[in-house]
Structures are given as C-alpha cells and as structure tokens.
C-alpha cells in the first residue's frame, strides 16, 4: 500500500519539479545569479580590467557615512513609494465611479487605461514639455487664466521637481491600478450589498465593512506594483530631470545607473543594488502584514 502511495507521491513531486523548472531557470539565470553577482561584488573592489580584491564592508561604510547623495536618493525613493497609496486611493475612487451602472463606463475605463501601453521614455518627453517653463501647457493654462503672472519653474525648482515626476508616474500607472481594483470590485458578490442595504447600512459603512476588506488582495497587488514602480520609472526620471536639479529627483535606481555606468564604479553600484533590494524586501513584508498577513491572495 505504502509503496503505491510513495510511488504516486514521488511521481507527483517529479511532475511539480518539471513544471516549475522552466520558470525557475529563467529567474535563476536572470534574477538570482545577477543578485548573487552583485552581493559578491559589493564586498570587493573591481573594475572590468582590474582583478577583484576583497575589501569587506568598505563600500557600505562609504555609502552610509560618506555619501550624502545616497541619503538623498534613499529619501526620494521612500517618498516615491510612500506616494503610491495616494495613486491607489485615486484609482479606487475612479474604479468605484466606473464600476457603478454608469452608461459609457467602458469608454471611461479605456480612456484611463490608454496611458499604460505608452513607452515610458515617451511619457517622460511629453511630461517634460507639459511642465516646461516657457511653452508648457500647465504654465500656459495658469498664465492665460490669470492664476499666476510669472511662469512657475516646475522641473527646475528644488521642491516642485519630485512631486511633478511623481504626478507624471501617476498618470501612467493610474490605469493599471484602476484595472486591478475594478476587477476586484466586480468579483464582490452582489448579495452582500443587498443584505447590507436591506439592513439599512449607510453607503459609507457598506464601503468600509464590505468593499474595502474584500478588496484587500487587489490592494496588496497594487502596493507590490507600486514598489516595483520605484525602479521601472527609471526611464521617466532619466528623461525628465536626470536626477536634477541637484539631486532633488535622484532615485536609488538612477543613482545606481549613474555610479555604475557614468562613473564606471560597478562595485559601489553593486553595494547600492544590494541595499535597494533589502529595502524593497522589507517594504514588501510590511505591505504583506498590512494586507492581512498572507500576502493577500498571492500566496494562499
């Protein structure tokens, strides 16, 4: 008896292994090995032509004590990730509006999603023009409507630059968030709402006690995409402000790119990569606990 069960068990394990194998090889080759390479390199001083010399934690020391650009980039990245809940809230509001039995909801949904398939480099070019001090659209609207007389220097001012880049990123990613939340909304069984309505539960209470809890898995998915976004929007920051003015919009990912390829210091860039990876792991665990402890629906 047991041998048949064992044979069935091992056959099933073999099947699982061979089903997982292709995806795992891709991630092993293109994610884990590079991460291993970066971790190994972050403890060495190496350049493409010099032999690697083990230097222990010098890079991390330099990063934490000496390098104030690192701290600027870290705070900017945290602000960037910290703002994604605002985008998620906005997307939730739009999803609620579009989800209701509004005529033409499909058209609104398509319009809001239109911006996602656009190349991020193109989004950077367009928004750099929108914010332009002279011929930009925002300044034109503000000046012609008399709200301001002198044009506002959006991307050139130290305190406006980061919010503007975040707004441009919202514009592109809002559609994707909306779609995720919209589908979450559409799968909440209607009878829950009927029952609540019959009991005279006000709309706001229905939202807080039915819609939001049942939407938690979709919100977790949005938060994870928001965290990923802090490095997929590398092209956006690179094209719009290239980290300027000064280091006001420098994200960790643009700083890694500048240190690695601009200054050809791959060992220091590897140390920065390791620190960024650890930061993102911590943030994902936090989001996981926030979204109900079991990584939402992703890992049940």
């Amino acid at each position, binding site marked *: 008896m047991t041998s048949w069960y064992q044979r069935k068990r091992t056959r099933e394990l073999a099947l699982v292994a061979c089903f997982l194998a292709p995806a795992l090889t891709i991630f092993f080759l293109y994610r884990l090995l590079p991460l291993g390479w970066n971790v190994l390199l972050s403890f060495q001083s190496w350049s493409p032509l010099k032999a690697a010399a083990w230097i222990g934690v010098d890079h991390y020391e330099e990063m934490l004590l000496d390098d104030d650009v690192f701290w600027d980039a870290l705070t900017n990245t945290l602000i960037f990730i910290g703002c994604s809940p605002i985008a998620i809230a906005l997307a939730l509001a739009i999803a609620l509006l579009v989800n209701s039995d509004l005529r033409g909801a499909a058209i609104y949904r398509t319009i809001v999603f239109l911006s996602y398939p656009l190349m991020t480099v193109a989004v950077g070019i367009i928004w750099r023009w929108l914010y332009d001090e002279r011929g930009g659209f925002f300044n034109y609207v503000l000046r012609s409507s008399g709200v301001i007389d002198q044009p506002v220097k959006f991307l050139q001012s130290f305190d406006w630059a980061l919010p503007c880049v975040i707004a441009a990123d919202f514009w592109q990613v809002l559609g994707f968030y909306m779609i995720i939340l919209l589908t979450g909304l559409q799968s909440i069984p209607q009878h829950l709402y009927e029952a609540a309505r019959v009991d005279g539960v006000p709309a706001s209470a229905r939202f807080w006690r039915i819609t939001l809890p049942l939407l938690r898995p979709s919100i977790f998915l949005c938060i994870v995409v928001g965290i990923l976004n802090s490095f997929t929007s590398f092209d956006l920051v690179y094209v719009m402000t290239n980290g300027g003015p*000064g280091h006001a919009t420098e994200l960790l990912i643009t700083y890694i790119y500048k240190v690695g390829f601009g200054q*050809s210091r791959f060992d220091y860039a590897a140390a920065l990569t390791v620190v960024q990876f650890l930061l993102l792991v911590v943030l994902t665990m936090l989001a996981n606990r926030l979204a109900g402890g079991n990584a939402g629906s992703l890992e049940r």
Partner: protein
Amino acid sequence: MQRRQLLRSAAAFSAATVLSAPAIAQTPKKISFLTWNLVHLEAQIKGWIGGFTASRPGVEVEWIDKKGPEVPVYYATQLAAGTPPDVIDIQGALGLEYAAQGALADLTPRFAADAAIKGRYDQDYLANWVFEGKNYMVPYYVSKTLLFWNKTRFKEAGLDKPPANFDEILAAADKIKGGDKTGMLTLNFDWLYWPLMMMNGVDLLSKDLKTPTFKTAKAEEVLTRLAAATKSGAINPISWTGRWVEPNEAFATGNVGMLQAHAPAFFWIKGKGPWINGDTLGAAQMPGNWATPNSHGLGISKGSKQPDLAWDFVKYLTDSDVAMQFSRVASVLTGNKTVDKAILAKFEKDDPLAFQVLKTQVEHTDKMCGNWRLGNDSRVKDAFWPEFQSAMLGRKDAKTALADAERRVARELKRA
C-alpha cells in the same frame, strides 16, 4: 534553503565568468567601430567603411552606433565581457577616464613610429587626451566654447560690441534683461561654464591635480555676483538647470542677449531661429579668450584583437579626404589642420556667419580651460556641480557652497 542556494549560485556564476569565451566567433580580420550618436550619417559612414575594406582584402568593419548617454553603458558591458569594440568615438573627458582604467591602448609609440601622423592634428586639441604623459586618442571632431551675442538685443541696450571682461558681461546682461528678455545664457554640462571662473583667475585644481584651489575670496565674490545676476534675471536660470535642448531653444527664440556654447550649438540654433543672419548674430571669443573644449576623439581599446588594423582604420578616418567629406556633411572641424583650413575657406565663401563661428574654434587654442587630465573626471564633476548649482539657484550662499564643494572634491581626489 535560500541562503545556501544564493552561495551556490554565486560560486557557480564566478566559474561561469572565468570560462566565458566570447560567443561571437572572431573571423581573422574583423574590427568593430563604435560611434557616438552619428546614426544620421549612416550612408556616409557605410561609404567610408566600404572604401577602407575595398583596399584591404579579407577585412571587415562592423559599425555600431549608440546615442550619447547609452555609449558608456554599452562600452562598459562590452569591457566586462572581454569583447570591447576595437575603435571607439568618445566625447571629452570620458576618454581619459577609460584611459585611466586601462581600457584604451597607448598611442605614443605609434606616434613615435609615424611622426607625420602626429603632425596632422592641432597639437592643443591633441593634448586634451594626454593622460600621465601618454597619448590615448586622436581628434575626430573638435569644438570649444565661444560667446554668441544677439546684435539686435545689444543695439536695443545701446551696446555695439561684445564684452571684454567679466564686469562688462554682467553689465551688458543687466542692461538687456527685462520682461521676457534675459541677458545671458550658458551651457553647463562637461564644465562648459568654466571660462566664467577662469577669466577671474579661479581654477579648480592645482597644477599637480592633487588639491582643490577654488575656495578663494575671489571665487566667493564671482559666485555671489553670478547668483545675484541669476536672481535679477540678467542671467537666465536655464543656464543652471537646462541641458542641451532647453538653453538652445531659449536662445533660438531671440530674446536672450548672449549665449556661451560651442560651435555645434550654432547649427542646432540656426535650424530653429529664422531671425539668425550675419547682422543679427555675432560670434566672439569669451573675455580673456578662455574656452572649454568639448571634442570627440578616436581611441583603440586595449582588449582589441586587431590593434594594428584598428590603428590603420583610425589613420584612414582622420586622413584628409575622408575627414574632408566628414567635415563638409556634418559641418564640423576635425582637428586635422589641412582639412580645417580648407573647410574654413569653403564656409568663408558659402556662409560667412558659419565661418565667423567656426573660426573661433581654431583661434586661441592655447587658452583652453576646464579640461583637467583627471582619471575620475565625472566623479569630480558630480561632486562640484551640485554645489555650484545650489549657489547659482540661491539655495546656498557662495561661502558654504564652496566649502561643501571643496570637501567633496577633496574626498574624490583622495579616493582616486
């Protein structure tokens, strides 16, 4: 399980790099040529390559072109993989950084063996790529900064000739400003703004490039005056925040008095500013004839499998007939003395204004500044520029900005 897997994967990987034979099978006589954003000259470059391979049987030249910001990414990756392109076209100080890293082959012995070749080039431009006494690159196309002055704006302000010193620049800029008009604009990438400091006797580093020498009372005064001029609108703030498109666009609109930029900016602006002609735009040297060079050089990678063939290709590209065609189609000066003389003569006949502009590129080449032969130029630049910019935009006063800049530049020099 994950930690063990991480270590196992890292060990397996380092083994992989050791035996990473280049996958591209190198046919016996093949070299690769990496250019910096010359994709619009595809037809001409393919023609020159055809001319080179036709006269040398069994030779192939693979041409790769990348946009400016992507050249370092591509070249660094190829270096790490051990298959660097044989001949590379690199801009300004980045060439010195690759030389310092040992990525470029030393050309001094080749010059010694072939004195006539070295004689071809303008010696001051050639000297830009001498690192620790060794030549690493030859000029491909050269330029340095000059002062464009908008004659109409100058006439409106009652002036008729370009400023002769720093005070006159600020005074002229102050007279011209007003409403949408601003007095002066400058490019700021790759130290192009440095003549403004040099004419006041402020240099970044000592002669031995070891100690920062810019924290002086004079420098403080210059920075304070520049910051005040920016605040008042005499100097257009785009000078400190723009890159390439924004400042050129602003000057092309016609309401900026002066622009400090190099010759390629002229051809870009000419396409955008219909108002530009001989009577509305003047080209002159900056006061004290100071100028920061921004040139492209050709170098040979040390990892090249065919160094002699690569050197032959470099000589072919920079000899007179190919260089002549290149300078005519791209309207650039090539650093090859005979070619530049001929192209200047042609422009003098066809386009007097362009002649005025290009003439400044070959005059006073002994007064170049902002071209320290540093192995870590981009790190020193990234240390100095944000502080200078903060001072210009009024976020820091000149004293603290210079103090912070000195601390960070000194650290970069120590770490080199």
